[in-house]
């Protein structure tokens, strides 16, 4: 037998993304001379960083064959709760300056996210409700709660001293360092821990994993908690980046995160892909397109359409490779 033939589509998916990436960079680079400027590239990286952290979380969920549609709302609620705490703590007019305070607020946001993830994971792993229904519902629950807590008001975090735009090292934003550190950390978690290896296995065949004594319920739960926690962290980073928490923070970001993962080679059907380089390439591609369209000053409504088309194509290629049942 030896090596089975890889389908041309699989080949296209594996290297096609890189090709498309290069082609798009060239097109945008030629049509706008600012596109390839250092400042724009750094901006692009900074913009991608929080979302990339979300993609890491989504990778764990998708590795198990699940999906988390609530990613965007999770970011919002986590950031909102953390920002509300900030307003309480700065009520006396003090500013957030110390690193410890930053860490505290990021941890709060992370914990809120983890809690939402725990709820998702519990419903999915214990009560066996299909993931897209559960996370769809938590999407609206989380955003509703966030709007309720904040009274539908925009909370400005910049004025309280919480901002990331002025935090950089060697000219590169702190956010990028955080993202890179997490990428490496979770790449190792997925590849070099028992949890990671068994997650990949169970994503391929749940029944067999169960028979081997792999605790699939626990692994699924951990994946959703991880995804939630990382989204929570990404949420507060987005807030610090954009200066505040509007009710529309991260709205629809799941539609960037999921196709980013799929484009990065992480299959919606579970058990396939890795964090490095998967999480980077897909996300950079999508952000490059959005960034490029902005620079070409396209009609902003077109973004939604473009995103939809990207998801459609990415998933189509993923599905054509999959030989299973249709739903």
């Amino acid at each position, binding site marked *: 037998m030896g090596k089975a033939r890889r389908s041309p589509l699989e080949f296209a998916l594996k290297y096609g993304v890189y090709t498309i990436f290069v082609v798009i960079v060239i097109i945008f680079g030629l049509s706008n001379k600012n596109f390839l400027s250092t400042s724009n590239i750094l901006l692009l990286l900074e913009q991608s960083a929080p979302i990339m952290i979300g993609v890491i979380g989504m990778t764990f969920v998708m590795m198990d064959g699940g999906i988390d549609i609530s990613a965007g709302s999770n970011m919002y609620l986590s950031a909102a709760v953390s920002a509300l705490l900030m307003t309480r703590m700065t009520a006396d007019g003090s500013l957030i300056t110390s690193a410890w305070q930053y860490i505290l607020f990021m941890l709060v946001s992370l914990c809120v996210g983890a809690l939402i993830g725990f709820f998702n994971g519990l419903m999915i792993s214990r009560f066996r*409700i299909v993931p897209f229904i559960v996370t769809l*519902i938590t999407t609206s629950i989380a955003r509703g709660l966030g709007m309720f807590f904040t009274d539908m008001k925009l909370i400005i975090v910049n004025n309280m001293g919480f901002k990331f735009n002025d935090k950089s090292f060697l000219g590169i934003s702190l956010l990028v360092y955080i993202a890179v550190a997490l990428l490496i950390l979770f790449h190792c978690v997925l590849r070099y821990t028992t949890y990671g290896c068994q997650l990949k296995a169970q994503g391929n065949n749940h029944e067999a994993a169960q028979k081997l004594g792999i605790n699939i319920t626990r692994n699924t739960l951990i994946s959703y908690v991880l995804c939630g926690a990382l989204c929570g962290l990404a949420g507060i980073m987005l807030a610090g980046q954009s200066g505040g928490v509007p009710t529309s923070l991260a709205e629809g970001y799941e539609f960037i995160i999921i196709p980013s993962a799929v484009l990065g080679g992480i299959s919606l059907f579970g058990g396939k892909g890795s964090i490095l380089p998967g999480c980077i390439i897909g996300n950079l591609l999508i952000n490059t397109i959005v960034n490029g369209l902005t620079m070409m000053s396209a009609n902003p409504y077109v973004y939604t359409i473009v995103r939809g088309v990207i998801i459609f194509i990415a998933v189509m290629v993923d599905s054509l490779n999959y030989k299973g049942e*249709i739903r």
Partner: protein
Amino acid sequence: MALNNKASYEKALRSIRLKRLLSDNAILVIWVVFFAASLLFVEGFASAYNIKNYLSNCAPLLVVAAGLTIVTLNGGIDFSTTSVISLVSTITAYILVKTALADTIWAIIVAFLVGLGIGALVGVINGLAISGLKMPSFVATLATKLVFSGVAVWFGSVFYEKVSLPGLPAGFTAIGGKGNPNYWFIPLLIALFVFVLIEWLLSKTVFGRRVYAVGVNPRTSQISGIPVRRTIFFEFLLCGLLAGLAGLMYTGKNRAGITTLGDDMFVNIVGSVVIGGTSPAGGFGSMRKTLYGVLFLTLLSTILNLLGIPYTLYDVIKGVFVLIAAGLELVTRRMNIRAAAKAAKMG
């Protein structure tokens, strides 16, 4: 001994039937209780105006939920229904108000046809993507949702001055029960017709049996001669068509074309189906259950509104109900299977 066995077997059967009757109609019972309680305790509920309003809120929701029921029975989902509603609203209002046809009967006819046509078009795209390209429905329809809601907003931004376009003729708004106080029953009639049609389709026809079979096991179905792909395709086509019809009804009801009309509706739509007791994993459920779900969820909205609960919490509360219902559906179905196993051993 044998007699004793027989008696206990009969008893087990009776208890299964009773349990099933209860679990099948649980939401209806809860709805009756909620409704009665609202009549007594919620101020402003027991008025002709409010009840009329309640029913006319149920009508278009039932139509779009009917389509989703069919898709859900196959374990699929159609996120794009909301974008169909938005797009239908945007385009039909444009036809009715801004084209050369405006103010003629032709405008209304064309608007109807275009509305249904948009629904059918989105349904065909979804159907082809899912049955032909084997894409999972939850992402395929997410993608089409993004595209078509994007198209709606873009269309509005180019051809409207604002996000909405009012001034629709009464001949059109009748489909949403507006334009004349006597029109209020029209959407109810449409909803009733859709309900009867889909209930009949699912429970009495070959298509219905195919939907359930494919929802449980597509491979067994294929080998038993069921055209699996065609069945799935028609499910999504029907879902799109019904969403198109609902889009016309909602547009009429609002007496305006609104580019984001469907945006916040999805929790209501999927919630109606799931709360009614149709399994999101496919194969189990019915149109009747969706009717209960629509009645209950709309009642919940009405009560929340009358009680002055903050708007932001509506979806939170509804969401909790949906998740509880989804959990209960699984538990009761497992119980039914166990009870049947027990009875089988006795018989």
